[in-house]
């Protein structure tokens, strides 16, 4: 059940958008396809919808093979980044569109539309036209329109991409709650890792037409499978392996999260000297930009109290302790304390 994608490839001219992708989206889960632009995430979503026909591979939705079915036969709900509402129709008419295509009776259409207007909390705005709504309202109408036909799966292409930061935050929380209510297998595309972390049950990280890792938000952050995932999810410092003596192979790099760097005033056996170049206050936390002695930049994250307790400032030299570093050798992750890696 859910969505199964098997060995899908798609090429646009010389550009390999999808390269032999396999994916299983479990029934009832909300899954994010996360990746930089050009990583193939939108193409994968559109291939599942039938808006793009893959060059090879197969697609199943709830056990039924969909590979050769038209979009209109797949019973999917699709939400577009720029809403794609029918601007010549009112909110009610937009939501009713799919029901009317399916020749649902008038009274039943009205009942369903009212139900959906309740769900998206736009009861009073049914007779407005899309041009008279805000971006967030439009996207909720688009969602109601997609849900009206009771699709087997819900597919959302950068659904919050065109909205302002605040609306975006509200709407993604709302989408998560809505998903808990309706429990419909859903896939959404995003390039915003924070969004993926906050909304999704599972994150699929894509890069250059391939899937790098599939896992829960916690898993992809704590146990990144590849250097790409490590760099893409969360902030990270990348240090050359040649820094001090190290067990990591030459040519590979060592990754350290900003919060795994401890700043202290006194040197210890494993600490390194660094100069503070810049300090950024971010509400409850402080970002400290440092320069190691060999001109290697480093970013550390501290909470406010820790920082104030240290009592140092830009230009001063401090000692940094690198905790929990991760290195990738032959594609295998090795994590451990820097003493292991930097000795």
């Amino acid at each position: 059940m859910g969505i199964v994608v098997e060995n899908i490839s798609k090429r646009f001219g010389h550009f390999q958008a999808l390269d032999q992708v396999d994916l299983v989206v479990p029934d009832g889960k909300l899954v994010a396809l996360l990746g930089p632009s050009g990583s193939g995430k939108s193409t994968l979503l559109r291939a599942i919808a039938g808006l793009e026909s893959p060059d090879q591979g197969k697609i199943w939705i709830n056990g039924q093979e969909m590979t050769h079915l038209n979009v209109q036969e797949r019973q999917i709900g699709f939400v577009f980044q720029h809403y794609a509402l029918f601007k010549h129709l009112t909110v009610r008419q937009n939501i009713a569109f799919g029901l009317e295509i399916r020749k649902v009776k008038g009274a039943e259409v009205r009942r369903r539309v009212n139900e959906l207007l309740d769900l998206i909390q736009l009861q009073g705005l049914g007779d407005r036209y899309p041009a008279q709504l805000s971006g967030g309202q439009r996207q909720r109408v688009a969602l109601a329109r997609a849900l009206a036909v009771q699709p087997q799966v819900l597919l959302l292409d950068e659904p919050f991409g065109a909205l302002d930061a605040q609306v975006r935050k509200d709407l993604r929380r709302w989408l998560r709650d809505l998903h808990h209510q309706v429990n419909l297998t859903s896939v959404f595309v995003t390039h915003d890792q924070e969004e993926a972390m906050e909304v999704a049950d599972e994150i699929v990280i894509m890069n250059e037409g391939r899937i790098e890792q599939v896992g829960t938000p916690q898993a992809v952050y704590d146990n990144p499978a590849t250097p790409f995932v490590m760099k893409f999810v969360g902030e990270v410092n990348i240090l050359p392996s040649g820094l001090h003596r190290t067990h990591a192979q030459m040519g590979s790099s060592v990754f350290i999260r900003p919060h795994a760097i401890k700043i202290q005033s006194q040197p210890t056996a494993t600490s390194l000297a660094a100069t503070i170049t810049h300090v950024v206050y971010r509400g409850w936390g402080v970002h400290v930009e440092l320069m190691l002695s060999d001109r290697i930049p480093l970013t550390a994250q501290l909470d406010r109290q820790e920082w104030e307790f240290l009592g140092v400032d830009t230009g001063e030299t401090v000692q940094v302790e690198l905790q929990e570093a991760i290195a990738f050798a032959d594609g295998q992750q090795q994590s451990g304390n820097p003493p292991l890696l930097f000795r």
Partner: protein
Amino acid sequence: MLSVNSQKSQKWALIAIALFYLALVLVIPALVVVVEAFRDGIGGFLAALQSRNFQKATELTLIATAITIPLNTLFGLCAAWVIARNRFPGRALLISIIDVPFSISPVVAGLMLVLLYGERIGWLGPLFASMGIKVIFALPGIVLATIFVTLPFVAREVIPVLEDLGPEPEEAARTLGANDWQTFYRVILPNIRWGLIYGVLLTNARALGEFGAVAVVSGSILGRTSTLPIFVEQSYQNYQSVAAFSAALVLAGFGVLMLIGKAILENYYLKKLPSH
């Protein structure tokens, strides 16, 4: 800084220039048509309308227009959709080819058709003649010439509107279960209607009024292959100015009818969509 007064007088000067220009090139010539048509009173005008040659010319013009509009609308819509929704090699060339009728003189277009379909000399003429179809100096030639000169209008008006609309509403309709016809009728058509109506209006105006290309292919045989614009010219050449201006007035009347039709449609849609 200009004073308020001199700004005001500037405004009036501009309006006066515009009105003068409009009167010179539009209002006075139109008035002349009306005045000349009624030179011999209502009776003269009505007599002119009852002439067999006039009626034949009107019939030909209306038939040619009635065939041209649906064909070019269909072609224009298809061409516009293909061009707006696809990127393919030769796309720019196709756009240029659709514009060819604009850049070729109508007389040359007519001559081209004669060389192609002429009964004895044409490339395809003998073939059609053997099937008993007379193209040149007959209705088919008039229709072909009219279609040729009005080909670009609908496509030209619809392409930018379709491009502006983007493919997403169509994709949304299909994800909601709409087939091709439902997508076109319920989503594309309501969104491109202004461009389409305008394209059809231009096609209609040109089809009614085309002179050069039709004059060449039709042979301008009075009472048999002369269309309304040709009838106007022939009557005038024969010193029948009342007949000429009466026919011109009728021709102008068709144009006005079309504009009224457009206004009614606009009004209908404005009532349906108060927000637009």
